[in-house]
């Protein structure tokens, strides 16, 4: 039987030491990984909270802004929305009555068109070619002087903020001489469009 010495493998197995070191290091690594994961999750949560905080501030600010300017928005909207023309035969969310859909009925015209009609313009509704939200009218007159026509157009442009003039032609009648001092009714032709509900 061999006696045990300090150098003999039975005295101290170095593998035990290596296994211990590896085990401890593994344990430390696992703990470090766990801590890192938790730190990352905390950081993500913190970031998410920051975003939520910002969103909350934004939503609250927006709500306060809306609350503060509610009256102003409603008033402005009501004023501008009134200028939007209703298409003929269109009534609020209802099917048109058999007798109501008469496109030639002047009562169904928007106020702007009525005003032109009352000033002596002939009005015809033109087919709409531009966009799906326009109603187009062709107007013609040979009885309005320049000094009456300009205020009339200005008044209608001011009363309807969505009135757009596509074409305006004014001609002096051939029977009137140039530099005539007499009031001259012009041959006027206008093509105008109004914003309408779809």
């Amino acid at each position, binding site marked *: 039987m061999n*006696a*045990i*010495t*300090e150098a003999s493998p039975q*005295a*101290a197995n*170095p593998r*035990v*030491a*290596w296994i*211990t*070191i590896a085990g*401890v*290091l593994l344990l*430390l690594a696992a703990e470090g990984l766990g*801590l890192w994961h*938790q*730190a990352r999750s*905390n950081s993500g*949560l913190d970031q998410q*909270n920051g975003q*939520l905080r910002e*969103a*909350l501030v934004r939503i*609250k600010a*927006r*709500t306060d802004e*809306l*609350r503060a300017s*509610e009256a102003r*928005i*409603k008033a402005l*909207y009501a004023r*501008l929305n009134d200028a939007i023309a209703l298409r003929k035969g269109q009534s609020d969310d209802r099917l048109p009555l058999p007798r109501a859909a008469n496109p030639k009925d002047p009562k169904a015209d928007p106020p702007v068109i009525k005003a032109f009609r009352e000033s002596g313009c002939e009005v015809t509704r033109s087919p709409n070619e531009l*966009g*799906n*939200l*326009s109603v187009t009218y062709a107007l013609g007159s040979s009885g309005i002087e320049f000094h009456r*026509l*300009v*205020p009339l*157009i*200005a008044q209608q*442009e001011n009363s309807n*903020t*969505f009135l*757009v*003039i*596509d*074409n*305006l*032609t*004014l*001609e*002096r009648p051939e029977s009137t001489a*140039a*530099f005539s001092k007499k009031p001259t009714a012009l041959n006027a032709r206008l093509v105008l*469009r109004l*914003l309408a*509900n779809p």
Partner: protein
Amino acid sequence: MRPLFISQENIIKRAYRRDRIFKLAGGVVIAALFLQLAFTYRLIQQTLTGSSLAGENRILSYSIRTANEARAKYAELEKKLADLHSWGPILTNRLPASAVLAAIEQAIPDGLVISRLSLKAVGQTAIKLSTGVFMLPRTYQLLVAGERQQGSDAGLTERFSRNLLAKMPSASRQLSQHAGAEGTGRPGTFQLVLELPANGNYHSLGLSPVQLQQAENL
């Protein structure tokens, strides 16, 4: 050397004490024990922070839900505001034809008379609204034709053209100018063609700032 008076147990213990690898293993174990303190401290800290953050997250989520509910009451108002914003380009860029006519009236000198005037939209911009598309004139072509008084200054048309251009919206330009000679008993003629952009800069047309400001404030 053979150990004669030392027991085997002592030999093994000595080997554990003296061997470098066992010393290293011992050092690692001791260091790991110290690190456990730091780990435990960090773990407690992280756990506390995590639970505090999770609590804050719950409170914030609840607050957002409440705030969204409060905001939902203004959904209709928001739609109206969105409509107002979408109408903005129409209000700001629409060229007021009456102002153009008034500017022409102011610019025309005594020696000229207009026989034909035409203002025609030559380019359109699509304005997208919530319910569809509205076409808004982007550029207009203004044609002014007329007669020149007999014996009047030859540069009258040129001056009228310059004066008229100054009164038109900014970035307007003259496309053509034609002056016909006088004949016997017949006045000279002129024709101007200008291009007017509908760009919202109508100060030169004499539009009051209130009208513009109203549209800009939407």
